[in-house]
């Protein structure tokens, strides 16, 4: 009965609020402007942060999200760099030792260890030349950790790698630069002056967080790499694929133990290597995300504050304009909370209009950006829309409370006498 009454009163209030807004379209729209800006800011901010997360996850998947990196240096910055500088370098042979340890471990969480050496090189084919190409030397097992497909050809085989054959796999940009408009397969390229036969070209992958491009790389067998370029101490690493990426931490522990055995470290001695994982990149992104969140929240807060002041003002005006109506309603039996509810519903309707307009604006902005730049991972989540609308409702309640309260406390006789 009492809940019915509140429901009926609320229904009536929505109707009155709609009529009120229809009668003052421009005034209501201008008032809702602050809320519109606020909601656009908060939803755009959320979309940007989400977009960064999505693009990050995509990039991790590109690298292979089930790979651990055994390296001399950690990926995060260190203060005591001298403790790291004295570490022995990682050698490609460590991969073989690790594979032996893995093979002797029952129920190992690790699948395979692959050595990777890298340097920058110049490539030539006929008149065409490209500089500063990231060139990797690795074993035939690389195919077991390589998460991409080939546009043409294949990866070199284990026997080819072991025999130190002069074969290579090109990133697609390298292939296109050296062999524009024709197949690169079975052509010969000069890498630092040494002839290599192209056995494969990778499909286009794009860049990792815009930092470096996978399409600008070259792979060759480790034997050939060592023969012509030597092994640069800081540029060698071992990549280890784990069997179950949901148990990455356990796998990391096992790998640490295995590597300590390879290095013959005694209990109590500190690790003289680092196991890196891509998750570490994610933390580097945190300050950027925090910056966006802070700026977004600041703009949102400011816009909503201005919007709330506007709504409060307009609701006070509405209460004053309709003082006699309030008196009449009280004479007809409206209770305090009825009047409170009525004016809260009016202020919430205005801010909700702002909220809906803001969400629509953000949706169309996102659609527009997506149409213009399809590569950007922009996706407006439904949760964000719901949050935006809730924020709008909250703003309406906060802004409307003072005027609605004052309306509910009006003395009915005074209100009826009001001119």
């Amino acid at each position: 009965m009492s809940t019915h009454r509140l429901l009926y009163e609320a229904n009536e209030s929505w109707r009155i609020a709609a009529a009120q807004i229809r009668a003052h379209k421009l005034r209501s729209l201008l008032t809702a402007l602050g809320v519109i800006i606020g909601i656009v800011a908060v939803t755009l901010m959320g979309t940007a942060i989400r977009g960064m997360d999505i693009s990050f996850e995509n990039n991790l998947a590109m690298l292979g999200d089930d790979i651990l990196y055994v390296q001399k240096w950690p990926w995060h910055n260190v203060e005591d760099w001298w403790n790291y500088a004295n570490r022995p370098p990682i050698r490609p042979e460590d991969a073989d030792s690790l594979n032996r340890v893995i093979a002797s471990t029952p129920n190992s969480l690790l699948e395979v260890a692959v050595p990777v050496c890298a340097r920058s090189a110049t490539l030539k084919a006929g008149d065409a030349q490209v500089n500063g190409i990231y060139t990797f030397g690795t074993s035939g097992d690389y195919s077991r950790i390589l998460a991409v497909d080939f546009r043409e050809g294949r990866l070199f085989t284990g026997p080819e790698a072991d025999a130190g054959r002069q074969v290579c796999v090109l990133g697609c940009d390298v292939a296109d630069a050296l062999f524009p408009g024709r197949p690169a397969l079975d052509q010969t390229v000069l890498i630092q002056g040494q002839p290599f036969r192209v056995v494969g070209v990778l499909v286009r992958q794009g860049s990792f967080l815009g930092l470096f491009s996978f399409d600008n790389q070259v792979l060759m067998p480790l034997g050939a790499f060592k023969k012509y370029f030597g092994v640069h101490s800081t540029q060698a690493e071992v990549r280890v694929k784990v069997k179950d990426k949901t148990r990455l931490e356990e796998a990391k522990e096992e790998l640490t133990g295995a590597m300590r055995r390879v290095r013959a470290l005694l209990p109590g001695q500190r690790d003289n290597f680092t196991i890196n994982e891509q998750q570490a990149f994610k933390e580097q992104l945190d300050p950027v995300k925090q910056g966006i969140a802070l700026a977004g929240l600041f703009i949102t807060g400011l816009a909503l504050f201005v919007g709330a002041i506007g709504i409060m003002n307009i609701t006070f005006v509405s209460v004053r304009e309709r003082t006699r109506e309030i008196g009449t309603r009280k004479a007809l039996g409206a209770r305090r909370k009825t009047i409170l509810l009525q004016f809260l519903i009016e202020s919430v309707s205005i801010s909700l209009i702002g909220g809906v307009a803001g969400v629509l604006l953000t949706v169309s902005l996102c659609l527009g950006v997506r149409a213009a730049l399809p590569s950007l991972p922009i996706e407006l989540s439904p949760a964000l829309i719901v949050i935006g609308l809730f924020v709008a409702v909250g703003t309406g309640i906060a802004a409307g409370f003072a005027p609605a309260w004052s309306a509910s406390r009006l003395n009915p006789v005074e209100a009826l006498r009001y001119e």
Partner: protein
Amino acid sequence: MIPPAAPSPASRVTRTPGPLVIDIEDVVKLYPMGAETIHALRGVSLKIRRNEYLAIMGPSGSGKSTLMNMLGCLDTPTTGRYEFNGRNVAAMDDDELADIRNREIGFVFQTFNLLPRSNALRNVELPLVYSGMAPEEREDRAREALEAVGLGNRMHHKPNELSGGQRQRVAIARALVNRPSIILADEPTGNLDSQTGTEIMALFNDLYERGNTIIVVTHEEDIARHARRIVRLRDGLLDRDEVQ
């Protein structure tokens, strides 16, 4: 439409007064105005029974509206006793007063006080919204009330599409719709021409004869003559109380 019937003594029906509805005793109402205090009511005692048709008369400023607001539970006395249907009004809180106004009292104002953006039906439904009646039932009751005041064909008109007399009829339908114990009208013809005023008073007479209890505030003898009992106020005091 109800024909504008000029009341002649022959056609007058006076119903037997029923139980006590309003019982005030020594009611004083003061309005503090800066340094001085306005004595709007200086000690008024009055009993009103069901089935009465009462006019409250007096010159402007004599306290008629103040008394009316008091009787209508819009205001409480500064001192004095007020019992409505045997319940002590002075002890009620805001929500209880709102409830009494909603269920027991129907107000008719000089300026009609209709909601401008709602049609006649919605205006008449409003008291039923506040008493928690379901929408379908509410609409039936509002139609009934509008038909009772002769506006069955104007239900969906907004106030600005109605004449002054029609607006006041809508307001009367709104006062009737919750079947209150009494109908209170403060200068109901004050904003109407005399012809329309007479029609409205005929409507009140009709409503009285059909079983309603009515209190009309006016400063015009012509209007007061419609009532069966006239109470005269002067300077916040009861001057005369006469049955016609």
